[in-house]
């Protein structure tokens, strides 16, 4: 436990936000995915809009996605690997933070530029705009907020450090809390001690996670890695119908 955080103490609000909310979101994500897979497999798609417009998509989409993939890797490293481990590997804290910041800012800027281009395209290309649902709009708002808070916070803290100021290390607050969630003993105090920008970004992240199963973002969960390992031509027999979405498995009907 983080002594500093202990000293700070934590109120009931902290309990709800950092002790209860993560589990609500977890249930939403897992339950939502299971539910969507069972009842809406037909709606589980990228809903690609490339047929309508590809000039801007060809720049925006890879920029956004590749940026985002780096950001995701960054989060995984930052949140899951304890600082003691990296220190044990001989990586000094300064080196770690400089590297993380460099990658983080570049990837974050790519992601933000990418999503900005995508949204601009979505608004200005007639057919793409008419194919945008309310669900999509909500998703874009939350997604952009998550990216902006994350990137803004990173830039702000980097600026403060450069100006010689001192900021708290998320690896002593956010990360322990994040890891503690998974062992079902949420370290509420650790998160409560984090600086407000971290809290804001974490909340945005939780909101984004909660939305994942219920928006077009589900496509991320079907990233087709299996493609690398299967033969090119797929054969299937007529009879081995898996239960279609919305139907439970049941005795196969007559042949057709």
């Amino acid at each position, binding site marked *: 436990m983080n002594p500093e955080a202990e000293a700070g103490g934590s109120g009931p609000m902290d309990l709800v936000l950092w002790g209860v909310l993560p589990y609500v979101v977890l249930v939403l994500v897992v339950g939502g995915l299971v539910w*969507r897979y069972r*009842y*809406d*497999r*037909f*709606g*589980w*798609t*990228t*809903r*690609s*809009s*490339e*047929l*309508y*417009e*590809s000039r801007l*998509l*060809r*720049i*925006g*989409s*890879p920029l*956004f*996605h*590749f940026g985002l993939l780096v950001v995701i890797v960054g989060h995984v490293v930052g949140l899951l690997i304890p600082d003691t481990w990296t220190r044990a590997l001989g990586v000094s804290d300064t080196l770690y933070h400089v590297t993380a910041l460099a990658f983080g800012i570049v990837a974050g800027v790519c992601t933000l530029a990418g999503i900005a281009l995508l949204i601009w395209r979505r608004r200005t290309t*007639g*057919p793409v705009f*008419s*194919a945008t*649902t309310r*669900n*999509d709009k909500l998703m874009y708002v939350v997604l952009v907020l998550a990216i902006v808070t994350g990137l803004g916070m990173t830039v702000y803290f980097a600026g403060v450090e450069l100006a010689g100021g001192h900021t708290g290390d998320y690896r002593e607050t956010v990360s322990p809390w994040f890891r503690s969630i998974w062992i079902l003993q949420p370290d509420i105090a650790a998160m409560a001690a984090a600086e407000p920008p971290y809290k804001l970004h974490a909340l945005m992240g939780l909101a984004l996670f909660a939305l994942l199963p*219920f*928006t*077009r973002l589900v*496509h991320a969960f*079907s990233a*087709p890695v*299996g*493609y*690398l390992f*299967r*033969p*090119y*031509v*797929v*054969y*299937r*027999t*007529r*009879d081995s*119908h898996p239960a*279609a*979405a*919305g139907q439970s498995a049941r005795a196969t*009907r*007559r*042949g*057709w």
Partner: protein
Amino acid sequence: MAERSQTGRAAADREGRSEERPIGRVMAQVAMVMNLDKCIGCHTCSVTCKQAWTNRSGVEYAWFNNVETRPGQGYPRAYQDQERWKGGWVRRPDGRLVPRAGGRIKRLATIFANPVMPSIQDYYEPWTYDYETLTNAPLGDDFPVASPRSALTGKPMKVEWSANWDDDLAGGPELAAQDPIVRRIGDKVKLSFEETFMFYLPRICEHCLNPTCVAACPSGALYKRVEDGIVLVDQDRCRGWRMCVTACPYKKIYFNHKTGKAEKCTFCYPRVEVGMPTICSETCVGRLRYLGVVLYDADRVGEAASVEDEQDLYEAQLGVFLDPSDPRVRAAARRDGIPDRWVDSAVRSPVYALAKRFRVALPLHPEFRTMPMVWYVPPLSPVVDTLTRTGHDGEEAGNLFGAIDALRIPVEYLAELFTAGDTAPVDLVLRRLAAMRSYMRRVNLGQERDETIATAVGMTGTEIEDMYRLLALAKYDERYVVPTAFGVDEADRGVIEEVGCSLDFDGGPGMGGMGDVPFGEASGRPDAASVETFHALRERQTSDGAATGGRAGTDGRVNLLNWDGNGRPEGLFPPRDGGGTDNGGDRGAGPGPR
């Protein structure tokens, strides 16, 4: 696959004679042949196909069956140009095939934005007409017109292209000159109206033996059915990565822009499974389509598809087809679980007969290396037309043979379509068709049969007459030799069960309407058609008077097509004296002036 074919070839070499080579896994395919001489370009096939499969939002622009005029650009525009569209396979120097747009890793690396996907403009922007103004326009001096509206945005648009804009060489030399084949064989093709030639090419998905669309699908949603070779998209597994659109060299995969899923010709599998022909075949005005089973050696497909010289692909594919009358093939088919009635059906298959026995059917663009299974009898008509135009007898053997030799341009054009540019097989087919004409004319005129005409094209008189029977006379049952699917009782032939047909099982390629749905267009299970009809009926029976369908702007108008005779819909009858619209009799209330 390539490795297997390497060893396979080595084995064949060891044994010396390839006939001795053991038969690999036998598979059956329901395949099609179209006789282009008979196509009148009426588009009936396209329209009935559309009615059956794609008259839904999201696939307005999709024609699972389309008919294009050659020379012409085709649909989507210039799709045959694989330098541009990257469809089909390429043979690497080591003899292995990779999709032209790249192998697995490249596919995944470019998944976020497919670098070579045709845009909607390459097909055409679908539109409808603003019919409302026809009835709602205020009284004025000008006739109201229904102007075109984009089906994508609802905005007014200028109609500038469609699936068959250059039909019958419309648009003249400027458009036809964009034909990829014309560009390849260059200025030899004369496009001035006096000298040009023209024929129609109806196209559906080829249900290839070596389909690139299947190979390119990252989710494995596309598959080839083992029993009948039909290539289908599993709508529940498709995730909209849209790689298949690029991969298919025939551009016969369509991206449904509303559901975000790929759709394609289904070979009308619910019909074929119960022994009925596809809709396009059933309704073909020229009766030029043939359906039948072809048995093939699945283990040899990879090897045949990767022969080095593109011009050998036609022969290589013929070599993969197995002769169902051969007892060894029958035994192997039984070994591999193919029902005897399928093998019997294959014996009577018109497709096998036209492709392999008479060798008058050719594959479309074998150089794409997908081993297409919809074959074509190339048209003799460009040659006959020219002959008659110049005052010659278009049915005399000598004239015809001479003309085939003289009129190289149509022959070269056909060779680019059907044999990767090799004119010899096309020559042979045209000669056989020409021989058939002259031979049969003698028979019809009561003259002596002239066996020399037959031998000149390497056939016998009997064979010519058989071929004639198939090409000219064949009735329904001879044109469509489709066995019912494995597991379907022969007694069920022709019965598509109304509840529980496989369409609503798979979600078909999308059934039913697209209502308001929570996760974006078309998520959720669409209602089964029966459920929709049920609600529509109930609404009609219980709602007051006519079913106006609740459309805005139709107040005071009654759609007589929907009116079932119940009630007195508002606006249909003049008000009675007492007012009100009771249901009582007295229909005699005259339509007098108010």
